[in-house]
Structure formats: structure tokens, C-alpha cells
């Protein structure tokens, strides 16, 4: 393991990026208790919000700042025939309830199924300019950490907290500890942001960053596009972190500039001047520092039932004696569920499904990578592939760039936007016992359908699997 736990520099005077944003949003502090934090942007979806709106009704409250909440239906939506009524009556009721709540509480930013701005909440936020550096951002969804790529404090909350934000635009939070993870050097050929994140989670384990807010730094992070940074920050929660963030730079400002809800004119100039101050000062102290070398990372896959159970695509699953005693029951249970043996190699193993999509990897660059690999090749007959763009804007771009033609030529079809098989709340469920190479974020038991077996990977590894029908090193 190439992790060096460094002692934080002593006598540091400066503030971290996290400190600067947190301190700018403190409304009050409860003695010996949490901080009352002001929230700049609240994202809201149909699954974790109905009970919060009901709570407001029960207390006779209005939404305090309706223009600071953006609502999109994504978790429980079909990815075909979205122009037709939703077939499942319980799902339909949840979507109708969402619309009723938007209407009853006069919510101006409501993007239901079929709306041009509809899509996965963590994809439509940045693409419409709702996500801006220096903000505090929450959503009743753990992958809210995605927005940290813009230099924000963004984290997932429960429904009681959704109600708090709707009622007061504030939340009570205990200040987390801070961690900086630095990736020195460059990623190798065929190694992507997703691989970097899966590598990191495999080193830290699924609870290794619990209690911390993480800042990502170093050459490999700086070299990433905004979309790649979103993938890394998105997966922060998979090692338990409260959130992940990256200091904004020219790439960030270029991305935000000109988007519909981004500041314009003089306001833009003022904001930009402030955003340029949003970085960790020299000598600022973190509670924990980790350093990795990007060159050590190879394309990653998972072999178990949590995202920390990852390995290089050419590696072997650990043997039982490499697992500490308290963890052996869980390890064996996990391999038993996956149908894998301890010590086994997975390269060459036949798979059944490929899922390209989700808030982790459902953006245009992910589709470009996938399309570039499959161009001129044919999808394996044994593979069912679900290609699900993260939003209608991504879908449109896939068409405009000619990627759809490439995908169609190679035997793939594109579905309509939504969370889809990432959590399989809709009909996009992988059947029991089947193997899915998935670009999403969780390989938990049953996550992609009861009994479904998920292998997490990058869009590039997913493309290679879709073509060969097997777990395949895309560099080969």
C-alpha cells in the first residue's frame, strides 16, 4: 500500500477550503451542539421528499425560500415511453405527489418527467448552472457529494433534514473533521477518474472516511475535466465521507460561465473574484492527510458487495487469510452472493448485463469514452446493455455529436434519462444471479435488483465488457 499517513504540518495558520465555505454559512451555533448552517441550494427528488412536504403541512408551514430548491423526478421513473402514463400505480402516485407538492407550495423550479431540464438530480444541477463554487448544497440523496467538484460543501441528508431546509433554508450539522487526499503524478493510459475513485475506496474501505469531509488535490485531480472531478467527488460517500470537494480553478469557472442559472454581468465579476479565493491556504491543517501515486492505479473492478471490495482488473480476489477475523463472515457471505471464490481472478469471466449511466457516470464524456471504444465493433450477443443518459441535455448532445449513430451501428440502444438500474427502483432490474458490469456507484446485495450481482467499473471497462461479453482489460 502506497498510502503515507502524514502528520499535519504543525503551527499552520491558514484555513482550508472547507473552513472558508463552512464559516461563511454559519447562522448560529448551538452550545455544545451542532452548527446552524445556511443552505444556498437544495435539490429535491420524488423519493425522499414526500414525507418532508407532509411534515410542513402538519405544522402549517410554507416553504421558506422556494427559489432555492430545484426539483427533478429521477429515482423512480421509467427509462422508456416517458411520454406514456407510468405503468406502476405506486410509482405513478409518488410522481403525482411530487407534482402536487410542487404546485401546493409554489415551487418555481420543478422539472417533471419529460421536461427539457429533467434528469438525474446531480447531473442537471451543474449543467444548468445551479451548482456554483462556494455554495452549501444539500439533497435527500447521498451522492450530493458530486457537487463538491465545484468547490462546494455538498452532502446528502435524510428526509427530516429535507423538511428543515424547506422550512428554514437551514440545517443543523456537526462540523466534520477534514481530510486531504492528494494524488501525485498522472493516470496511465486507459485509467480514468472512476478507477482512481474505486482504487481510493479499496484502500480506505467503505467506512474509512466516515466523519470526515475530504478535499482532493494533486496533479492527477488538477488534470481532470469537471466531469471527471464530479465522478471522484460523487464516490466520496462510498468510503463514508460526509462529502468531497475540489478547489475551483479556471476549468471550473469556464464550466459555470454562461449556464442558465449562473451569475451574469457585474454579479459574475464579483462572484468570480470571490471564487478565486476559494482554496486551502498554505500551511492550513487537516485532521488527516493521505497521499497516493496516480501511476499505481490500473483499471478497477469490484468483486464483492460493497464499493470498498475493489481490485485491479488483472488482480485476484483476496484469500481468506488476508481478511481480518471479525470481517471473515461478511467477506464469505459477500463472495457467496457474488458466486466468486476467494483468490480467484475475474478477468475473462462471462457477464450478462452492462449498465452505462447514473450520477457517477451518466454524463457526455462517459458516453464519448464508451462510444469511442465500441466504434466499429459489435456488442456481444450474450450481453444486455442499458445505456441511460443522465439528462435530456446529455441525450441531446449524444445525438448531436453523432455518438448515437456509432452506438446504434455497434448494436446498442439508448434509453431515456433517469437513475435507472443504479438502484433499480423502476423496471430496470438485473435478474437474480446475473452479472452486471455497471458504471454506477454501489454493488450492494440486491442494489440492481433482487439477487443481481454487480461489478462496478469505469465506462471504458464497461465498453470492453459489452463488446467481449467478458470482464476485459480495455488496455489489452
Amino acid at each position, binding site marked *: 500500500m502506497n498510502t503515507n499517513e502524514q502528520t499535519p504540518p504543525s503551527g499552520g495558520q491558514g484555513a482550508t477550503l472547507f473552513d472558508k465555505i463552512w464559516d461563511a454559512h454559519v*447562522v*448560529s451555533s*448551538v452550545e*455544545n*451542539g*451542532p452548527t*446552524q448552517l*445556511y443552505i444556498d441550494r437544495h435539490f429535491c427528488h420524488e*423519493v*425522499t421528499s*414526500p*414525507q418532508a412536504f*407532509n411534515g410542513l403541512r402538519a*405544522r402549517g408551514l410554507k416553504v*421558506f425560500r422556494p427559489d432555492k430548491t430545484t426539483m427533478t423526478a429521477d*429515482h*423512480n421513473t421509467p427509462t422508456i415511453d416517458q411520454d406514456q402514463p407510468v405503468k*406502476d400505480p*405506486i*410509482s405513478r402516485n*409518488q410522481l403525482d*405527489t411530487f407534482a402536487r407538492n410542487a404546485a401546493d407550495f409554489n415551487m418555481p423550479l420543478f422539472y417533471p418527467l419529460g421536461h427539457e431540464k429533467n434528469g438525474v438530480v446531480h447531473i442537471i444541477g451543474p449543467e444548468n448552472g445551479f451548482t456554483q463554487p462556494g455554495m452549501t448544497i444539500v439533497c*435527500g*440523496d*447521498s451522492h*450530493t457529494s458530486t457537487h463538491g467538484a465545484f468547490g462546494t460543501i455538498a452532502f*446528502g*441528508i*435524510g*428526509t*427530516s*433534514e429535507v423538511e*428543515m431546509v424547506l*422550512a*428554514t*433554508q*437551514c*440545517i*443543523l450539522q456537526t462540523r466534520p473533521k477534514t481530510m486531504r487526499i492528494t494524488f501525485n503524478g498522472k493516470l496511465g493510459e486507459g485509467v480514468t477518474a472512476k478507477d482512481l475513485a474505486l482504487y481510493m475506496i479499496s484502500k480506505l474501505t*467503505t*467506512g474509512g472516511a*466516515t*466523519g470526515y469531509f475530504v478535499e482532493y488535490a494533486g496533479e492527477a485531480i488538477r488534470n481532470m475535466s469537471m466531469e471527471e472531478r464530479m465522478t471522484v467527488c460523487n464516490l466520496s*460517500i462510498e468510503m*463514508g465521507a*460526509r462529502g468531497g470537494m475540489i478547489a475551483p480553478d479556471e476549468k471550473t469557472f469556464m464550466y459555470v460561465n454562461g449556464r442558465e442559472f449562473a451569475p451574469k454581468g457585474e454579479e459574475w465579476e464579483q462572484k468570480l473574484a470571490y471564487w478565486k479565493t476559494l482554496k486551502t491556504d498554505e500551511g492550513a491543517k487537516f485532521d488527516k492527510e493521505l497521499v497516493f501515486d496516480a501511476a499505481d492505479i490500473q483499471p478497477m473492478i469490484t468483486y464483492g458487495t*460493497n464499493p470498498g471490495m475493489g481490485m485491479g482488473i488483472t488482480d485476484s480476489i483476496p484469500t481468506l487469510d488476508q481478511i481480518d477475523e*471479525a*470481517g471473515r*463472515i*461478511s467477506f464469505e*457471505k459477500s463472495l457467496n452472493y457474488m458466486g466468486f471464490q476467494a483468490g480467484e481472478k475475474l478477468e475473462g469471466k462471462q457477464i450478462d448485463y452492462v449498465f452505462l449511466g447514473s450520477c457517477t457516470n451518466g454524463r457526455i464524456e462517459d458516453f464519448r469514452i464508451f462510444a469511442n471504444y465500441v466504434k466499429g465493433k459489435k456488442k456481444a450477443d450474450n450481453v444486455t446493455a442499458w445505456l441511460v443518459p443522465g439528462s435530456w441535455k446529455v441525450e441531446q448532445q449524444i445525438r448531436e455529436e453523432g455518438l448515437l449513430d456509432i452506438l446504434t451501428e455497434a448494436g446498442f440502444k439508448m434509453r431515456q434519462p433517469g437513475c435507472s438500474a443504479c*438502484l*433499480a*427502483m423502476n423496471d430496470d432490474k438485473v435478474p437474480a444471479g446475473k452479472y452486471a458490469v455497471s458504471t454506477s456507484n*454501489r454493488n*450492494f446485495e*440486491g*442494489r440492481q435488483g*433482487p439477487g443481481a450481482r454487480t461489478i462496478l467499473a469505469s465506462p471504458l471497462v464497461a465498453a470492453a465488457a459489452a463488446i467481449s461479453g467478458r470482464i476485459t482489460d480495455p488496455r489489452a
Partner: protein
Amino acid sequence: MEKFLTLTSTIVPLPIENVDTDQIIPARFLKATDKNGFGDNLFADWRYNKDGSPKADFVLNNSLYSGSILVAGKNFGSGSSREHAAWAIAGYGFKVVVSSFFADIFQNNALNNGVLPVVVSAEFLSEVFNAVNTDSKVTLTVDLQNQTVTNNASGKSENFEINAYKKECLLNGLDDIDYLLSKRDMIEAYEVAR
């Protein structure tokens, strides 16, 4: 919210690590628009066969074990932010979850629903699992005021941490929204001052 003071109860042991929220309540059960009924689907895929019949080998289906304290392996509640996980645990009748480590969001969600997460040492946890293996009717006592948890089989006690504010909330049955609503003036002043 109901007040929480002290509790002595037999326990339900779940010696699995990294129990994620998709196991606590699978996503397909998140379609409801109220908070009721989630307890019936707590640990649904571990608890029921495909046809809905109970799986004999799962602890909730084993009549030897019952009580309002769930004792689980480390890193309980990782994954999704779904508060439905806390509603399922509360709905089933658990008032306390004991583990050596909890995921952040779950811990907040539990506290916001009157379920007390109690963090114990790995050693204490392992002793509780051993004790319940020997005698399924072993009890734990959780005293919130004094922040102690006691294994009544051995008499061994441990202190546990809880945020002082959250402790007051639980002892008095208050929730965060009451507090925040009382601060409306400060919120408006903050907005003006920015």
C-alpha cells in the same frame, strides 16, 4: 418525537459488517409517500424468500431472539441517505442500535426518529455476540442520561458518546425543526448581511 430515557431489553444479534441501507430497506420499497409500514420490509431480502415466506435462517425469523435492541457488526447503515432505513428500524420496534461504528447519515437519521445509535468498542461488541450465542435471552441496559451501556450477562459497562444537543433532544422528545423555527429572525438577518 417520543422521549428516550433508559431501556433494558433482550437483543437481536446481526453480526454482519457494513450492513448498508439497501439491506435495511431495499430501494423498491421506497415508493411510499408516508412514513408507515416500512418495518414490515426491514431487511426484506435477508428476511423473506421470493414468494414472501420467511427465511428460516435469518435472525428476525428466529423465535429465540427478540427485543428492542439491534446489535450489529461495524459500519452499520452505510450507503444511501434514505431515512426510510431509520423508519424501518423504528417501525419494526427497535429503539436502540448497538454497533462499533455507524455511517454518518444513518446516525443522524436514526437520532431524528428517536432511535438511539450506541457506539461500543469492538471488544464489547464481540463479548455481546458471544454472550447471546450462549444465552439468547441476555439483556443490555442503555442509560441515556448517564451515557452507559451494560452487558447484563457479564455486568460489564461502557460509556458511549452522544452530542450534548442531541441527547437533550432525545431526553425531551424535541426535534431540530422546533429549534430552527425559533431562529427565523437570525436566518433573515443572515440573508440580509450577505
